[in-house]
């Protein structure tokens, strides 16, 4: 038997840039030549603490971008990294957004909260692809938790990029209300392709509205979040119905997972 590649082996990359997005959320540019696709994730490692699956938010020349919110034991440690430190990880894992399905059609991206990190890269890709119409809806809890403020101007000049805040703020002149309100107002073709990532209730609510607009469920893709330990389909933690989110996902065509995703406690 040939020597097998060890999927638990960690890689190292120097942190070249750290951007504070908002309180407790940092974006890291990490040096690497590792190829990856929009939609994939890495298992980021904190010494002595463990790993957390974090989506690859973007990729530049010789580096990857990770946006990390300090919510758990691992991410709290990762958010302490500064320029020049090393980040350790394994990956990339998982499938990718099927952007080709949106060629010559409307592509609608719906992101909620930190879900924007999971859709940012595919949105950036889509700006340069033969997409007929590109719409991105982004819902954030409040003004202070907005991510990637420095990219909005560029994005808005190239595509329909709309933001809504759940809570009003005197500093905010734009839309206020749930992302579902924004979605309801949108006129869409029935063959629109939808990519979405956000909290489970947001995804479910958006799918209902999309259905009312006549968009079939097999045109909708959702990136799911589950507990992952191994990322290679052997630890069982991320199972949803017959799928392993770590290797069959994290992106699923909605009609294939609906039954498990919408049912309680599966």
């Amino acid at each position, binding site marked *: 038997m040939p020597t097998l590649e060890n999927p638990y082996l960690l890689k190292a990359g120097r942190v070249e840039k750290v951007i504070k997005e908002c309180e407790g959320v940092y974006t890291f540019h990490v040096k690497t030549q590792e190829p990856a696709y929009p939609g994939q994730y890495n298992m980021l490692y904190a010494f002595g603490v463990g790993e957390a699956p974090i989506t690859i938010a973007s990729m530049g020349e010789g580096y990857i971008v990770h946006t990390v919110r300090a919510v758990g034991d691992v991410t709290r440690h990762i958010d302490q990294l500064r320029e020049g430190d090393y980040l350790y990880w394994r990956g990339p894992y998982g499938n990718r957004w099927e952007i080709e399905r949106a060629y010559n059609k409307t592509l609608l991206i719906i992101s909620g909260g930190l879900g924007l990190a999971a859709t940012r890269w595919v949105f950036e890709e889509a700006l340069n692809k033969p997409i007929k119409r590109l719409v991105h809806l982004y819902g954030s809890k409040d003004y202070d938790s907005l991510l990637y403020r420095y990219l909005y101007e560029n994005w808005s000049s190239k595509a329909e990029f709309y933001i809504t805040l759940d809570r009003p703020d005197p500093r905010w002149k734009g839309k206020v209300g749930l992302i579902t309100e924004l979605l309801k107002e949108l006129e869409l073709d029935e063959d629109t392709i939808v990519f979405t990532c956000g909290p489970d209730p947001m995804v479910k609510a958006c799918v209902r509205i999309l259905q009312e607009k006549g968009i079939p469920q097999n045109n909708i893709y959702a990136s799911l979040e589950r507990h992952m*330990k191994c990322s290679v389909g052997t630890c069982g933690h991320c199972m949803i119905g*017959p799928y392993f989110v770590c290797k069959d996902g994290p992106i699923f065509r909605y009609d294939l997972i609906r039954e498990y995703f919408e049912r309680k406690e599966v």
Partner: protein
Amino acid sequence: MESKGKGGSYLLSLEGIRELFDRLREKYRVIAPKLKDGLIAFSEVDNFESLPFGYKNVEAPGFYTLERSGGYFTYTHPYNSFKNFLHPPELALIKVKKEKGKLSFQVHIQEETLCLFDIRACDLSALRVLDLVFLHKNPHPDPYYAGLRKGLFVVAVNCTYATFTCFCSTMGTGPEVKEGYDLLITELSEGFLVEVGSERGGEILEKIENKSDAERRHFKEKAQRLRETEAMMRVHFEREGLPERLYGKMDSTYWEHIEKRCVACTSCTQACPTCFCFDILERNNLELDESLRVRVWDSCFSPSFATVHRFNLRQSVHSRYRQWLMHKFAYWVDQFDCFGCVGCGRCITWCPVGIDIREEVRRIAYA
């Protein structure tokens, strides 16, 4: 059922079996059943006398005892499974060292020359199932499992007895051992029928002096004994179409009845030879400059198993039971093209409240 072995078949006396065992001991670390704390347990065995000859295990839901019996391989399978040796309860993946702020990694992939001596049809099927999970149906084959699995020598034994909790015939995995062995033993009235299943099985048998060629009547007796064993087991449910039936019952209120009994102790998943789920823990030294990444068994019944952002997606015990049963009998078929249950019955015997998975499958899928 009257089949001849692939590479020859012989009749051995007990002395011949002892010689075979001793020869295997020279080359392999032999894992075999052994009497331990009033149980028959798979253990590392140094001498032939340790085999639990003259005993049989009597099992029922939540019940286990040993009784004297009149033969040799008269028990069924050990209370634990081969899983403990190929997918150990605890296994070090990587040792991480921190020096001057930088990390270095040490990987130790253990390679063993193991021999499973006296493995039964159900467990041999479970071995094939774990091979699919860790190696053959995985885009990232597991090098740790592969290392322990590599070179494994398999001496299988046909069951001539079944306990009340055995249901391999329902799952189509036994009682007859049909493939995946180097040598296969069946205890007969005149001696032990040994069939060769591989070249290296044949090589080791060649060196045994006390043997004679097996004859037609030996295969007849083997078939008869296997028929008798099968007759000891009731057929509990129809395997064909079972996943579809279960998929249709995910909202059944019957799951909640199970919650009234299941205590989510995780015993079934630990005893199961195919349950593969694990957690990865970090074991740090006091100086905090060394950390061992350890893979330990986990269970879908544990309250933190499906936690996302500190919220457990499967809060209720019935949802965890549903996850377990659906995985074994439905999801597994989609994932690996086979059932995750081999009918060994360990989960029934070792359930402290005696939940009988056969009854639960029957009630959920066919009621």
